[in-house]
C-alpha cells in the first residue's frame, strides 16, 4: 500500500440539474489530518458520501487505500470509519448495545470486541451513559456515540462530517486531541465550519466552493498566500477628527491604504494601515504619530486570518477588501 490513502480524481456529482460537485481532485496521505471547508451547500457532504460508497459519483472515481469505489466498495468501507452529518443513530438502542452491533458488523467478536469497546468508550468519555438508550442522550453525547462507532474497528481512514458540532468546549478539546493523536499514523478527513478549529487540528485545508476545489494548502501557507500584514494603531482622539488622523498616516510612503476601524473604546480611534508590500510599518506609524503630536496607545500587527481567506475564496469577488 502506498502512502496515498485517498485519491479522488475528477469527482463530479449531478443531482438532477444541480451540480453538487464539479471535477474535484485531491489526494490525502497516510498520517494527514485534512480539514474540509466550504460554505453551506458547497459539496462537502456529497464528497464524503462518495468516498464512503453511499452514493456513486456521476463522473470521475476515487480510491481509498488502493481500493476503487466502483470496483470494490466493500474493501473501501472496511478501511473507513464514517461519521455522517447529523449523526444518525438507532435511538431505541442502548449505547452499549449499539456499539456492540457496530463492532460485530465490523467483524469484531468476543474478547477483541470487548477490548475495543472499552477503549473507544474511554476515548470518547461515554462511560456514564453506556447503559442509557441513545434517544435519551443530549446532542453532544450522541455525537460522541457517533465518533465511537466510527473508531471501533481502528480504521486506517476516518471520514468525519462535522465531528465537533454540538460538543461542549471541554469535550471538543478532548476530541481535538484524540483526532490529532489518531491522525499521526492514520488518515482523517473532517469537515467543519469552525476555522479556528482547522488551524489547531488540521495539517492541511481543502476549501470547496460551489462544488469546486478552490484551495488545497496548509492553514499557514494559505494565510501567507492570500494575506498581507496589517497594522492597527490605537490613538487617543483628543478632539481630532477621523479624517485628520487618516491624513497623518497617509504620508507614510509605503502605505497602500489607511482606514478607520470600528471597535475602539470611547475617546479612542482605531486606524488600520496596510503596506504596499510586506513592509513592516510599525516604526513609520510611530514616527508619524509623534510628529503629528498624536498619542499612540497601542500598535499591533495582524496577519490576514483564515476567515478573510475563506471569505475571499468562496464569495467569488476575491480580493475585495472588507
Amino acid at each position, binding site marked *: 500500500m502506498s502512502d496515498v490513502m485517498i485519491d479522488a480524481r475528477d469527482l463530479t456529482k449531478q443531482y438532477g440539474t444541480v451540480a453538487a460537485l464539479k471535477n474535484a481532485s485531491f489526494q490525502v496521505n497516510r498520517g494527514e489530518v485534512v480539514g474540509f471547508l466550504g460554505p453551506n451547500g458547497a459539496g462537502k457532504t456529497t464528497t464524503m*458520501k462518495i468516498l464512503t460508497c453511499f452514493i*456513486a459519483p456521476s463522473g470521475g472515481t476515487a480510491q481509498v487505500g488502493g481500493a476503487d469505489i466502483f470496483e470494490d466498495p466493500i474493501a473501501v468501507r472496511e478501511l473507513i470509519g464514517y461519521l*455522517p452529518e447529523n449523526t444518525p*443513530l438507532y435511538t431505541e*438502542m442502548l449505547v452499549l448495545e449499539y456499539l456492540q452491533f457496530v463492532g*460485530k*458488523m465490523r467483524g469484531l467478536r468476543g474478547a477483541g470486541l470487548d477490548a475495543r469497546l472499552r477503549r473507544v468508550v474511554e476515548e470518547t468519555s461515554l462511560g456514564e451513559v453506556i447503559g442509557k438508550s441513545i434517544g435519551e442522550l443530549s446532542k453532544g453525547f450522541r455525537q460522541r456515540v457517533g465518533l465511537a462507532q466510527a473508531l471501533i474497528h481502528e480504521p486506517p481512514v476516518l471520514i468525519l462530517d462535522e465531528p465537533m458540532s454540538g460538543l461542549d468546549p471541554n469535550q471538543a478539546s478532548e476530541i481535538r486531541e484524540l483526532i490529532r493523536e489518531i491522525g499521526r499514523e492514520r488518515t482523517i478527513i473532517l469537515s467543519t465550519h469552525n476555522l479556528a478549529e482547522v488551524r489547531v487540528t488540521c495539517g492541511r485545508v481543502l476549501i470547496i466552493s460551489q462544488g469546486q476545489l478552490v484551495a488545497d494548502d496548509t492553514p499557514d501557507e494559505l494565510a501567507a498566500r492570500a494575506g498581507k500584514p496589517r497594522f492597527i494603531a490605537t490613538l487617543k482622539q483628543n478632539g481630532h477628527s477621523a479624517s485628520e488622523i487618516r491624513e497623518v498616516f497617509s504620508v507614510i510612503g509605503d502605505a497602500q491604504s489607511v482606514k478607520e476601524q470600528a471597535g475602539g473604546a470611547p475617546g479612542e480611534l482605531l486606524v488600520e494601515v496596510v503596506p504596499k508590500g510586506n513592509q513592516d510599518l510599525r516604526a513609520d506609524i510611530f514616527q508619524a504619530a509623534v510628529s503629528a503630536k498624536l498619542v499612540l496607545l497601542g500598535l499591533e500587527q495582524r496577519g490576514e486570518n483564515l476567515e478573510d481567506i475563506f471569505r475571499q475564496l468562496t464569495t467569488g469577488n476575491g480580493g475585495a477588501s472588507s
Partner: protein
Amino acid sequence: MRSVLTIAGRQFRSYFNGPVAYIVICIILLTLGFFFWKTFFLFGRASAREMFRWLGLILVFSLPALTMGLLAEEKRTGTIELLITMPVTEAQVILGKFLGVLGLYAVLLALTISYPLSVSTLGDLDWGPVWSGYLGLVLQGSAVLAIGLMASSWTSNQLIALFVALTLSVFFWVLDKFLALLPTNAASALQWLSFDYHFQSMARGVIDLRDVLFFVSVVVFALAVAFRALEARRWS
C-alpha cells in the same frame, strides 16, 4: 452471512424496544381469539381449521404494520447511511431485515400454538393438518412480509409503505373471491395468483410442491425488487 445474522438480530431485538410489535401481536392474538371462540360458543365446535381460516386473513391485514418501518424508517432518520457504509452489500441488508422480521413472525406463530392445544384437550385433534397449516402460515406470512419489505424500500414514509403493502397483500388475498363473475380461463389464472387459494389447500392438510413454490417465488421476487430499490439510491 455473519453480517446478515447481525442485522437480523438487531432488527429482531429492536422490535421489543418499541411499542409497535407488542401492539400488533396483541391485536392479532385478540382478534384471533375473538373469532375462534365465537364460533366455538355459537356452534359448539372448535377446530384447527377454524383457526387457520381466521389467522390467514388476520395476518394479511396486520403483518404490513411490522414491515412498514424496515427500510422507510432507516431512510427517514438517516441510519441507512451508517448501515450501508459498513462493509455489507445491499443484498445482505435486505436479507438481514427480512430474517429479522421473520424471527418476530416466528414468535407470533409460536404464541398461537395454544389454540390447537386447547382444541386437542376438547376432543380428538388430527395434528397432520395442523402442521401443514402452520407451514402454510409460514409461507403466506413470508410472502406478505417480503411484499411489505419491498414497499418499505420504495419510500421514506412508513405510512405510505404500510398503505402500499396492505393494498398489495389484500389484493393477492382477495383475488380468488370474485371468480364466479369471470370467464373460466381468466378465473383459473387469477385463482392461481391468489394467496388464499394456495394457503387453504395447506390448511386442509395438503402439501403441494406447487403451492410451496408459489410462495417462495413471491418472496424471491419481492426481495429482489427491494434489493434493486436500495441499490438505486447510489445512482440517484
